[in-house]
């Protein structure tokens, strides 16, 4: 990467602290508006109005940074600082949405891992929410370490660790893309494009192992590019420890990093004479490749089933059917009722702007670097060639979104593909470094001129803004951009305080690690606040989809070894609003097709049969003891039938 053709430096502008302070003040104003929107939503205010306030707040945060970063006379330090500042500001937006506890599904998974380490002081404790995640203990380990040495609670510790990761990813991506594009201004644009990816605002801010693994991977790429020529043993030790940290933290990040290093090595090796730096990259590629595969196959064995059997293979199967002419199995913009038309239009606009930007950026970069042939690109700027190839795969990563099993897969590729997209679209802001005559065609010259001067600044900033707003609509359900009200009217999509109370009661009175059956959202609270072991929903959901507790239902309770059942009557109040639209599992009978809430008769059975004893009741939350059924010592009978039989 750092052997790309040298480009002479343009004079460095001075940092304008006054401008940065002004931008900081404007960002603070934006955050105040976001806070107001969240608080009002939490207290039951008008959702659409509060959403408008949220959009205004986000725009106020993004636009000044974008306008400043695309300007010419801005110092490198200021651009770097602004990109990091934007990343941190958007992280604060996520915290404002859930300021007192974790709310996203993956956060509970890793909270349980952290709790296991704090409880046992060891690794690989059983995690009922996602067993495979326990075998990548990097995030949980460092969070547990932070809790141990500071005494902070796990929520605050988790926020700090992911916050550190956010600073790292924003800063390191700027530095890497600066080398790829050869320009700090282009790197600033690349950083803004990356901050505009659909997952950046909420998903990439969550307490999840990818949100530590990916920043560490970005750090590795930058550190290798910085030290591979003149670095000493200590520099190499830093690289090795960072590679190990990525391996321990997240599988896909480790695989992606090894692929990137292999591509980097291959491009340099085959286009120019290999030097010590090239060989070092090859060595690190071999190291991370071997380590990540070995860890995956030898230590994290459940991860293979999770990644391939539960995610990749089903998605590929559905994609194959779709490509062969089958119907799409997933509704776009799903998650509750249909969002307004403008929401979907914004998403498509973002895609359109990004795709439109591709040829413009290629032409701009071609003219700016003075290339004559494609071979020039590979020989003189191999890292740029790799970035272009990554960006070119973007349209194909959209196809899985049309399938129910591929939607999540497609979403998560954004965090990787947008590194290439960012570097490519950053070329929109490149400038020629020499005064060679531009011997290019009229169209190329016209495109080049379009992106120049003050008009070019506005155009680039406008494209960035459309991409930012539109990608938020792609990456997030319309009804989940703001927190639900304190007392939700229907079935809530996040864990409620009364369920947390029930989970804590269960921990205190029933003991930890008891097998439970419940709906998916409430299982998150049971597994973390209660330290219980909710059984996988795809296994136990039939227990709830029957009006009787005898027969097949009792048999399932026995085979699944369920001892307790948590019933949430809010399932009967409203439709499920999580992406995928289900209460328990995507395999339940009416998943994605609910038109009416869950049947009350199916929940009444737990009170209407013998062998099911209510232990706890608080509002809509009930806990039943079905240990007798699980052990086979009690045969459930309808209470009315029992009374009738007894009276005879």
């Amino acid at each position, binding site marked *: 990467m750092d052997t790309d053709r040298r480009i002479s430096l343009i004079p460095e502008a001075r940092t304008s602290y006054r401008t940065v302070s002004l931008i900081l003040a404007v960002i603070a104003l934006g955050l105040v508006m976001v806070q107001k929107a969240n608080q009002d939503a939490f207290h039951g205010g008008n959702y659409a109005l509060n959403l408008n306030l949220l959009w205004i707040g986000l725009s106020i945060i993004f636009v000044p940074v974008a306008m400043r970063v695309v300007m010419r006379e801005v110092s490198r330090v200021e651009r770097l600082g602004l990109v990091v500042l934007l990343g941190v500001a958007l992280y604060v937006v996520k915290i404002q949405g859930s300021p007192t506890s974790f709310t996203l599904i993956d956060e509970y998974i890793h909270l349980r891992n952290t709790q296991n380490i704090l409880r046992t002081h060891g690794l690989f404790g059983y995690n009922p929410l996602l067993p495979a995640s326990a075998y990548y203990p990097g995030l949980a380990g460092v969070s547990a370490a932070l809790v*141990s040495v500071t005494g902070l609670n796990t929520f605050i510790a988790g926020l700090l660790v992911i916050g550190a990761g956010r600073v790292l990813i924003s800063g390191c991506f700027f530095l890497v893309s600066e080398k790829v594009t050869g320009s700090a201004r282009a790197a600033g644009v690349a950083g803004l494009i990356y901050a505009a990816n659909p997952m950046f605002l909420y998903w990439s801010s969550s307490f999840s192992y990818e949100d530590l693994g990916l920043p560490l991977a970005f750090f590795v790429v930058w550190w290798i590019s910085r030290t591979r020529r003149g670095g000493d043993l200590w520099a190499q030790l830093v690289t090795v420890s960072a590679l190990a940290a990525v391996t321990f933290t997240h599988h896909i990040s480790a695989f992606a990093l090894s692929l990137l290093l292999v591509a980097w090595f291959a491009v340099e090796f085959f286009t120019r004479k290999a030097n010590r730096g090239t060989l070092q990259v090859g060595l690190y590629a071999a190291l991370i490749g071997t380590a990540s595969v070995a860890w995956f196959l030898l230590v994290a064995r459940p991860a293979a089933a999770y990644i391939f059997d539960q995610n990749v293979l089903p998605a590929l199967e559905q994609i194959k059917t779709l490509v062969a002419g089958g119907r799409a199995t997933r509704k776009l913009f799903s998650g509750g009722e249909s969002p307004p038309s403008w929401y979907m239009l914004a998403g498509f606009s973002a895609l359109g702007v990004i795709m439109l930007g591709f040829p413009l950026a290629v032409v701009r970069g071609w003219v700016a670097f003075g290339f004559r042939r494609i071979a020039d690109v590979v020989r003189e700027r191999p890292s740029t060639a790799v970035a272009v190839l990554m960006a070119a795969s973007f349209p194909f990563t959209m196809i899985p979104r049309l399938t129910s099993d591929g939607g999540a897969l497609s979403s998560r590729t954004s965090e990787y593909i947008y590194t290439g997209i960012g570097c490519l679209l950053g070329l929109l802001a490149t400038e020629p470094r020499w005064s060679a005559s531009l011997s290019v065609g009229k169209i190329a010259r016209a495109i080049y001129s379009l992106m120049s001067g003050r008009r070019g600044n506005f155009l680039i900033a406008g494209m960035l803004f459309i991409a930012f707003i539109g990608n938020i609509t792609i990456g997030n359900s319309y009804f989940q951009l703001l927190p639900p009200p304190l007392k939700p009217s229907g079935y809530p999509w996040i864990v409620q305080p009364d369920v947390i109370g029930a989970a804590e009661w269960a921990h205190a009175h029933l003991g930890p690690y008891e097998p439970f059956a419940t709906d998916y959202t409430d299982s998150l609270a049971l597994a973390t606040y209660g330290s219980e072991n909710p059984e996988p929903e795809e296994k136990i959901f039939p227990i709830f989809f029957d009006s009787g507790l005898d027969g097949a239902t009792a048999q399932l309770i026995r085979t699944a070894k369920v001892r307790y059942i948590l019933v949430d009557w809010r399932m009967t109040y409203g439709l499920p609003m999580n992406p995928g639209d289900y209460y328990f599992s995507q395999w339940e009978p009416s998943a994605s097709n609910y038109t009416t809430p869950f049947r009350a008769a199916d929940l009444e059975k737990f009170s209407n049969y013998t062998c099911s004893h209510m232990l706890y009741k608080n509002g809509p939350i009930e806990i039943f003891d079905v240990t007798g059924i699980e052990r086979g010592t009690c045969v459930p009978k309808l209470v009315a039938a029992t009374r009738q039989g007894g009276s005879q």
Partner: protein
Amino acid sequence: MKSVRIELAAMILGLLAMGLEEFLARGPVSVVCGLLLIFVLPGFSVMRAVLSQGNLSMGEQALATLGTSLAISVCAAVFLGATIGLTRQSVAVLLGFIVIAACLTRLIRSGSLKRRKWED
């Protein structure tokens, strides 16, 4: 001389961290020490052992410090969890030891550490 003072200060903080369990009750001081131990000290001391001054800009140094600290803290946590157990004491001792070792390396090398310019 200034360089030696920096190393000595880092070593003192490292020693303080190692004594976290014994001497520091949980409170604001413990929080600050713990945050420095996880996010700053390991990376800062290792960076000073790696580099001569002036190779990285301030922003790059800050990112390098943070990234290295996180990487070392992750590796330390996994190592402890897989071996003797991850506790307050074990984390503090191991990370404190790494800080002190890096500082000593810097002090030993500072006599022979030549200014290096890495090519960009």
